[in-house]
């Protein structure tokens, strides 16, 4: 990933820090912001590394720790909570073999809790990367996971050729 190319899409002012950090994080295959990247951000925005960390620490969507290829956000806010957040977390645990905030051994998935993603009409809902999946049952979750697994298997194969 070309850090400088991404940053140069924005003027070097602090008001662009969140847009820049989002783009950099999205471009990283492990969905996080490594220190060497943040040093470049600090230099570009003419600020200190610690103030960049300060901003990141506040916002739940940004991570300074490696995560995984796909981020699964499970909504735990009131509507989803009453409609079955716990069932969703358990189903994910069953299908992925991991709990919250740890990557699957193949580095494909990472599950974390989130607050309301504004899709309460299909509660309980989860977000996988940019997509919303709702009205979830244990079976539905199994199908979604296999579908994504299959897709990334294909991508790997094609890349290998």
């Amino acid at each position, binding site marked *: 990933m070309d850090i400088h190319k991404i940053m140069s899409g924005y003027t070097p002012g*602090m008001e662009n820090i969140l847009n820049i950090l989002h783009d950099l994080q999205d471009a990283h295959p492990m969905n996080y912001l490594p220190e060497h990247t943040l040093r470049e951000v600090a230099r570009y925005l003419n600020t200190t590394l610690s103030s960049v960390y300060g901003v990141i620490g506040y*916002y739940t969507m940004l991570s300074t720790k490696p995560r995984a290829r796909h981020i699964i956000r499970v909504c*735990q806010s009131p509507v989803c909570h009453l409609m079955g957040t716990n069932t969703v977390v358990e189903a994910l645990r069953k299908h992925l073999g991991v709990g919250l905030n740890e990557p699957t051994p193949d580095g494909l998935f990472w599950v974390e809790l989130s607050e*309301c993603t504004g899709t309460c009409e299909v509660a309980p809902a989860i977000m996988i990367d940019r997509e919303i999946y709702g009205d979830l049952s244990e079976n539905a979750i199994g199908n979604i996971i296999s579908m994504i697994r299959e897709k990334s298997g294909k991508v790997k194969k094609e890349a290998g050729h």
Partner: protein
Amino acid sequence: MIKENRIVLKNLGLIDPERIDDYISAGGYESFKKALRMEPDEIIDEIIESGLRGRGGAGFSTGLKERFTSEACLACENRYIICNADEGEPGTFKDRIIMENDPHMYLEGMMIAALAIQATRGYIYIRGEYYRSIERTQKALEDMRSRNILGDNILGTGMSFDIEIKRGAGSYLCGEELTLIESLEGKRGYPRIKPPFPAEKGLWGFPTLMNNVESFACIPPIISNGSMWYSSLGTKTSPGTKIFTISGPVRKPGFYEVELGVTLRGLIFDLAGGMVEGKKFKAAVLGGAAGTFVDESLLDEPLGFDEMKEKGATLGSGAIIVMDETMSIWEMLNSILRFFEHESCGKCIPCRIGSKHLLKLMQEVKNSKNGKGLLTGNLVAQAEIMARTSLCPLGQSHILPIRSAVQYFPEVK
């Protein structure tokens, strides 16, 4: 049987949200052109007279806010306009529906408001999770630039104005206007002390108008059809239509745009199809987490800002979270308080400590066999202290669900 009256959502499903030509064919940007021929004060008068009240939750007069902003610091070289698209209130997704299905509607409203206050630059702060809303808005802005509706010398009038998108990154509190401004400036989302209000000292200290997505989207129809027309819809003190979002165990959860003054019964049982098979209505939470519990006794009251306030309830953002009789009030209230505790920024002590303390009290309420009245009384008293002493409106919100839950469901069961 009540019916939807789609004004803000009039194009929904009828046009391709990524094609500006579709929007224009449906009469889009005619209101903006009309506004270009009006004096700024005339636009503001029209909006004041329409009676439009902010759709972000507080229900303040949209026109008056424009007047305050347009009259603040006349010597200032900058005047900003911000669209609040942070939509983080649990149970609320109306702004997403607008942005995904008809982004030009709210952008046209924002352009008209920019004319009214003579704004020098605009920003849209969209929550980071709303990828599709961001993409659709981005595309709409590009198309507006290519049609010279945005940019330099707009439609040959000499007006120059542009709008930028800023992404949020996962914080409910950043939807609060002054916190949003801090975040937009690139800082951690800690609230500022009010006053001064954004109208006076907002973004980088300049006069700033901030409105919700839905508020902006109400403006084009008002300018096209006039304030008289708009104020004839809805109720006397809450004119117009409102998009309600209904979630929980109803047959057809989703969004419904209706004239204000309709009843909860109409929304839940007519439009949303009633409760799912075999379930019985128990309660609804109106307005999201920073909202209020109501029981059956409010099903037939007209939904309006003041009408609800009289009953100790709130309309808020238009969220209606329905609960059936198998669901527990305690569980819902506890989940709301957990949400607040998670979103508390920790800047002031009453909310930082208080939101944790309330969760502890909730455990005591749960475990108590008798003497629950004393405990819930304590819960209300503690939340009242927080409301009086917290720095920002988040710490003043806990009392809303707590007081109403205890009022309508003294056993909190």
